[in-house]
């Protein structure tokens, strides 16, 4: 694994985002850097939900943030609606933010504690219009209502008066105000006319969800997951769903990518991936999920420590080789490339658990 390669990228006009060879480095002091993401590629079709799953420190959140260019990636391209965001100036990026939004893991931290809910949700309108106050209020009310928050009681309250689940709804409402704003539609139409090349490419709006339910209780988690599914259908959104919980990712995604230590391991549709994992790491992850069913046999053998190597000094070749049972010499000398093992099922492994197609 640790795979580079782009075999899993799809051609076609309906691809909204294509990320190629994405690298994100962070400074760790004294001029040294650590690669949080080291060369991954993936794409998302319009109307699709891509699930990005992996353990902490694998670079999944960083990948999500690289798409909205916060911060800008070190290298690689992020092509959104046919335009490479890396080529754009800060101001051009800012203009494009109307089409890409993000919701965060900590719902309370993602709302300014000193502003009212109405004010927070109306913020995108202040930046992008319409500037008419009553029009703004109507939009805010409609959005709060559609995420299941009563606008009349919520509008004048501050975030700390709400529970985590409620705050997450409010922050979703803020993103929706942005993505569904008619003023934006207008503006973007005008711009796409000027750059005719982007016209034929995928349309749609992207909502990046960075661990949106992992700080919530399970009952609230289900509410938010259902809400996201509803909103996606209702507004025709495209989503990227980043999480560490495999069951949650499977539930919401149309396609799942598994990440390990800054690299992609496996890409497939969720039902295939969970039924016939081809990468040993995917298999390990799936075997570790505690199933709420006492009749399921637990693999009691896994006791020894097997933890992430340091991302500042990753293993050569396949990055998973230090924890892999199927490791051979090839794994340390050569980095595996993405290749197909089935219909829309790709794996970056020298010794996959499933036969390689073609």
């Amino acid at each position, binding site marked *: 694994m640790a795979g580079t390669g782009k075999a899993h990228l799809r051609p076609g006009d309906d691809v909204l985002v294509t990320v190629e060879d994405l690298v994100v480095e962070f400074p760790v002091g004294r001029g040294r850097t650590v690669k949080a993401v080291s060369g991954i590629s993936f794409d998302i079709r319009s109307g699709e939900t891509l699930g990005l799953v992996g353990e902490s420190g694998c670079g999944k959140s960083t990948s999500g943030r690289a798409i909205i260019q*916060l911060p800008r990636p070190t290298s690689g391209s992020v092509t959104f609606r046919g335009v490479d965001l890396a080529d754009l100036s800060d101001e051009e990026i800012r203009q494009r*933010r109307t089409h890409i939004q*993000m919701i965060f893991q900590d719902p309370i931290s*993602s709302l*300014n504690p000193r*502003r009212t809910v109405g004010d927070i949700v109306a*913020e995108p309108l202040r*930046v992008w219009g319409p500037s008419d106050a009553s029009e703004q209020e109507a939009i805010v009310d409609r959005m709060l209502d559609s995420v299941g928050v009563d606008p009349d009681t919520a509008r004048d309250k501050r975030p700390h008066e709400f529970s985590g689940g409620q705050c997450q709804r409010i*922050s979703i409402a*803020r993103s929706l105000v942005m993505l569904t704003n008619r003023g934006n539609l207008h503006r973007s139409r005008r711009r796409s006319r000027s750059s005719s090349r982007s016209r034929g490419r995928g349309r749609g709006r992207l909502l990046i969800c960075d661990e949106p339910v992992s700080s919530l209780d399970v009952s609230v988690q289900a509410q938010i997951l259902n809400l996201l599914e509803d909103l996606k259908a209702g507004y025709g959104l495209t989503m990227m769903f980043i999480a560490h919980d495999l069951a949650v990712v499977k539930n919401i995604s149309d396609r799942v990518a598994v990440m390990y230590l800054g690299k992609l391991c496996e890409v497939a549709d969720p039902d295939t991936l969970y039924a016939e994992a081809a990468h040993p790491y995917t298999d390990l992850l799936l075997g570790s999920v505690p199933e709420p069913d006492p009749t399921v046999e637990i693999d009691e053998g896994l006791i020894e420590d097997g933890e992430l190597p340091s991302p500042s000094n990753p293993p050569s070749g396949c990055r998973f080789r230090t924890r892999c049972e199927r490791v051979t010499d090839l794994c340390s000398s050569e980095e595996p490339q993405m290749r197909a093992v089935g219909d829309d099922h790709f794996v970056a492994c020298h010794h996959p658990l499933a036969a390689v197609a073609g």
Partner: protein
Amino acid sequence: MDTAVDPAVAARRPWIRRFVAKMPWVTRFCASWLIVIVAAAVFADLIPGLADPNYQGFLFGDGATNEGPGLSHFLGTDNNSRDILARIVYGARVSLTVALAAVFMGVVFGGFFGSLVGFVRGKTDSTVMAVVDVILAFPGLVLLLTVVTLLGRRDLVVIATVIGFLSIPPYTRVARANALSISRREFVTAARAIGTKKRTILFREVIPNVLPTLLAYAMVNAAVIILLEGALAFLGLSVEPPTSSWGTMVNASRVDLQINVWPAIWPSLALVFTVYSLNNVGDWLRRLRSVRSAAL
């Protein structure tokens, strides 16, 4: 500590009343004292029956020096037969002006620079903080002594400006530390993701969250500044006589300490109690904030 009563504040009375209801009685007392002392300093000229602070009665055969507390002079007179109460009231002007100047310059300039560099980070940050560190490397009073002396002039404006200028660095530090952690919060990232301009983020998202901490710090800092001005005055290096200042009064009282302790006691009490009130109310505000943030 907004003590002005304008209609907007009056409309929110119930809120203030609830606020006051939460205060322990000591804090209520301290807050009242602060209001009284501020009012007395502001309206000193209008207080009926308050003597002229510089009128030396004994020169005109009108009163003696070192009188004890009595009816004609409520708190007695000093060794120049000046009315102590009047001198304390006018002395409060010096202490409070200096404290206000320090808080104002600290919050406005220190708060702004600190928030700015904490938000943008990078080179601006290291440069500004290097300067701040150098200024902070001077022991406060020593630097103050040097600057005040070298300036030659020692009126209230000079003293207040110098002390105000020297309080910018500590506020910058406090503001920066706060802005750093606030800038890492996700609502700032969210604002950027919405496409809000950086300047707007600084003023709408960062600074409003830095301010409460800065104001709580300002209470405590005001107390320190009043002590500093007191020390400066005690050394004879604050505002030039005959303008009264609490520290100057304490210093002057030393000569006749054997004969009359009152001229030493009253300004000391005024100083100690004002500083204590600031500390007490400041601590209370901080406690209130920490409870509130813990509840988040």
